[in-house]
C-alpha cells in the first residue's frame, strides 16, 4: 500500500487518507463489532490438538489489501497459464508420460513419489481436467514482483473467508465501497457450481452435485457447509453415500438418489476404504469403481497431489514451457532440492539464512525458518536433513511484502501472502480477489491460521 518513503501508492491514496483520518477508537470499535459478528455467525475453525470441540475465530483485520487493476491483470494471466500447465502435466503423467520421456523431469521424482496414484493410470476424466479448484499461494518479494510460493491442488480451503471477509467489510464500512471501484467476488459459488456441472459424466444433462465433507469435526467444516449452502447442493458425509452397480447414490428420505459430481473436501487416502486406507470411515466403499466406470466425477480428481508436491514444484516453470510452449509469466521462488548433492551442500552451509520445508508438510508445521531459529533448532534440522535429504526442500528467506494492519499499537506493517482461487471447467476463471493472510505477530513470516495468522479482505480495483 505504501512505497519506500511511506507514501501511499497511487491506487491507495484515497483509502490511505481516509484511514489515517480515522480515530483509533473508531477502528477498535469496528474491529470489536467484526469479532462479535463472526462469533454470532459461527464463522470459526477447529484447532487440531486442542480439546475436542474447541472453536476459534480467525482474526480478521479491518484494513483491506488493495491491488491495482494492472497488477491483477498480470497475476490473473500468470495464474491461468500456470493452472493450464499443471492440469496438462497431471493428464500427461496418468497417460503417456511424455514429459518424463523427454527427460524434462526425472521419472523417479514422479513415479516414486508418494503422491503418485497408480490407480489413476489410464483413466480418462471429463474434459481432461484434474485440478478443478486450485488455490495458488503467491507472495511479493523485496523486488515487488509476485512469485508463486505453493500450488494447492488437492483440497484447497479458505475461499469462504474471502467471501465472508468481503461481506463483513461491506457491513462495517459501506461508505468505502461507494468511493472505491472494488471488483465483486460474491459470484464465486455460482461460477464454481457451473464449473462442477460442466465436468459431469458424458450424457448427463442435469447432474446432481454434492459436497463431500469429513464432518462437523473438520477444521474447515464451516467452509464446507457455507459453500454447499451458497451453491444449493447437498452437504454429504461418507455415510450418506453408497455405490451400487458402479453408480453412486445418496440416502434420502425418499430413497436412493443418483449422484453425478462429487466436490470432495476429503483427502485421497480417505475416499474409498476398498482402494485406499482401509480404516477410513469418512469415505465411500466402491467409489473408485464408480469413478473408473465413468459414472461419477470427483473434483478435484484423485492423484492431483503429484503436481503440488513440494519436490515437483521446482519443475512447474518447465511444465509451462513443455506443454504450452510459453515462457512462465509468474516465477517460482528459488528452491533447492536437498536430494541433489550440490544443492544439499549449499543449503547445509547456509542454514541460518534459509527456510527449510518438509516436502509433505502443510499448514506451516515442520519447517525451519533459519533467521528466526536457535542454533539448537538449526543443528536438529541439519541432522534431519542428513538422515532424510529427500524429505526436504529449502528456499531463501523471502523478504515478504507487508501491508498496513490494525494491531494493538495502531496501524503497523505486517507480512502478507495471497491465495487466489483458480477454477477450471470449460474454461479457466478466477474471481478478482483471493484470501489475503497476514502474520499478526510483528516480524513473523508465518501466515497460517493454525499458527496465529489472520486474514484481510482483498480489493482488486476496477479500471
Amino acid at each position, binding site marked *: 500500500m505504501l512505497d519506500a518513503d511511506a507514501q501511499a501508492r497511487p491506487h491507495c491514496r484515497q483509502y490511505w487518507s481516509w484511514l489515517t483520518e480515522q480515530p483509533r477508537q473508531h477502528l477498535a470499535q469496528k474491529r470489536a463489532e467484526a469479532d462479535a459478528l463472526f462469533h454470532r455467525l459461527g464463522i470459526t475453525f477447529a484447532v487440531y490438538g486442542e480439546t475436542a470441540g474447541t472453536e476459534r475465530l480467525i482474526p480478521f483485520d479491518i484494513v483491506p489489501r488493495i491491488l491495482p487493476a494492472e497488477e491483477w491483470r498480470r497475476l490473473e494471466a500468470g495464474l491461468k497459464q500456470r493452472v493450464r500447465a499443471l492440469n496438462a502435466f497431471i493428464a500427461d503423467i496418468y497417460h503417456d508420460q511424455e514429459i518424463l520421456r523427454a527427460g524434462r523431469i526425472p521419472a523417479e521424482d514422479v513415479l516414486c513419489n508418494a503422491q503418485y496414484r497408480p490407480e489413476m493410470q489410464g483413466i480418462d476424466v471429463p474434459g481432461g481436467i484434474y485440478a478443478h479448484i486450485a488455490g495458488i499461494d503467491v507472495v511479493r518479494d523485496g523486488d515487488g514482483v509476485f512469485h508463486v510460493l505453493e500450488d494447492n491442488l488437492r483440497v484447497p480451503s479458505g475461499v469462504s473467508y474471502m467471501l465472508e471477509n468481503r461481506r463483513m467489510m461491506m457491513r462495517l464500512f459501506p461508505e468505502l465501497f461507494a468511493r472505491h471501484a472494488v471488483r465483486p467476488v460474491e459470484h464465486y459459488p455460482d461460477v464454481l457450481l457451473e464449473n462442477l456441472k460442466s465436468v459431469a459424466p458424458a450424457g448427463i444433462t442435469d447432474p446432481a452435485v454434492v459436497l463431500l465433507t469429513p464432518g462437523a469435526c473438520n477444521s474447515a467444516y464451516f467452509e464446507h457447509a457455507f459453500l454447499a449452502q451458497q451453491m444449493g447442493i*447437498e452437504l454429504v458425509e461418507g455415510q450418506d453415500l453408497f455405490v451400487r452397480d458402479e453408480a453412486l447414490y445418496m440416502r*434420502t*428420505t425418499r430413497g436412493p438418489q443418483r449422484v453425478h459430481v462429487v466436490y470432495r473436501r476429503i483427502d485421497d487416502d480417505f475416499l474409498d476404504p476398498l482402494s485406499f486406507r482401509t480404516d477410513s470411515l469418512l469415505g465411500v466403499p466402491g467409489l473408485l469403481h464408480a469413478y473408473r466406470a465413468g459414472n461419477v466425477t470427483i473434483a478435484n480428481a484423485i492423484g492431483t497431489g503429484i503436481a503440488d508436491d513440494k519436490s515437483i514444484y521446482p519443475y512447474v516453470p518447465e511444465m509451462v514451457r513443455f506443454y504450452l510452449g510459453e515462457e512462465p509469466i509468474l516465477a517460482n521462488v528459488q528452491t533447492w532440492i536437498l536430494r541433489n548433492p550440490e544443492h544439499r551442500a549449499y543449503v547445509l552451509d547456509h542454514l541460518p539464512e534459509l527456510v527449510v520445508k518438509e516436502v509433505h508438510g502443510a499448514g506451516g508445521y515442520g519447517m525451519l525458518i533459519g533467521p528466526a531459529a536457535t542454533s539448537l533448532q538449526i543443528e536438529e534440522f541439519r541432522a534431519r536433513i542428513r538422515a532424510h535429504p529427500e524429505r526436504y526442500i529449502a528456499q531463501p528467506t523471502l523478504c515478504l511484502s507487508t501491508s498496513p494492519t490494525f494491531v494493538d499499537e495502531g496501524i503497523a506493517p505486517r507480512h502478507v501472502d495471497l491465495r487466489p482461487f483458480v477454477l477450471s471447467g470449460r474454461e479457466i476463471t478466477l474471481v478478482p480477489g483471493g484470501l489475503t493472510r497476514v502474520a499478526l505477530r510483528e516480524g513473523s513470516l508465518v501466515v497460517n491460521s493454525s499458527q496465529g495468522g489472520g486474514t484481510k479482505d482483498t480489493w482488486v480495483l476496477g479500471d
Partner: protein
Amino acid sequence: MLSRTADHLYWMARYLERAECLARMLDAQYRLSLLPRPPEAALQGWTATLVSLGMEQGFLAQHGAVTPRSAFDYLAFDREHPGSILRCLQAARENARAVRGTITSEVWETLNETWLQSRSFGTHVPEHSRGEFLEWVKYRAHLTRGVIEGTMLRDEAICFVRIGTFLERADNTTRLLEARWRDPGGSGERLANEASEWGVLLRAMSAFELYRRVCREGVTPLRVTALLLMREDFPQAVHRCLDELQSHLAAVANDQSGDTVRRAGELHAQFHYGRFEELCADGVAAFLDRVQARLRDLGCRIANDFLVPLGAA
C-alpha cells in the same frame, strides 16, 4: 433430502423442545417449593420428577440423596449430565451446526447465540436468579420457533423439524403429568392444597389462563389432566401434538413408512374419538405409561423409515 440431514433437523427440534419442557418441569417444582408444604412433600416432588424422566438412577449414583438444590442443578446446569438443559441446548446447536446449510442463517444464528449465552449460566447462579434462567430458556425456545416459522421454506425440512418438536412435546407432557401423579403431595387427602398445586402445574405449562377460559370450574387433578391430554386446541396437549405429528408424517410419507403413518393415526384416533374416563379406566398412570410406550415406538419407526436408524450412527 438426505436422511442424515432430516435426522439432524429432527433432533435439533427435539433437543430444543426438551430444554423447554425441562424448564417447565423445573418451573413447576420451583413454584411448588414456594407453597406451604411439608419439606418431605417437596423432596417427593423432586424424586417424582427424576423418576418420570427416567433419570433417578443416574442422579442417585452421582449425588446419593435428593435435595431440591442438587436436583435442580442436575437437571438445569450439569454439563456432565447429557439430560440437563444446558446439554440439550448444546445438542440442539450441534445438530443445527451439522445442517447449517439447510436451515436458514437466522435459525442457525439464533441457536448459536442461545448456546453462546448459555455458557454464562451455571451452578453459581444465585437462588433468586434461577427463575430468570428458566424464563430465559422458555424465551429462547419461543424465539427459535418463531424464527423457524418466519424464515424457513415450507418443504420437507420443516416437516422433520415439526415431527421432532411434536413427538418430543407429546412425550414431555405425559412425563410432566406422570411426575405430578406420582407425587403424593399432589393428590389424595390434602384437598385444600390440591387446587393450588395443580394450578402451579397449569402455570408452568403457560395454561392457567387457558384453563380459566375453557373450563369455568375449580382446578382438580382430573380436569387438569384431561385438559393437558385431550384438548385439541391447547398447544401443549397430547391431542394437539398428535394432530400435528400425523399431518407432517403424512406429508413426508415414503414407500416404507405406511405402517408408521398408520400407527400414528391409530394413536391419534384414541385422543380424537376416545373418552377420557374410558382411556383412564385402569388409572391415569397406566394410561400415561401406554401412551409413552406408543410414542417410543413411533420414535423408533420414524428413525428407521426416514432418518438414521437409532444406534446406527
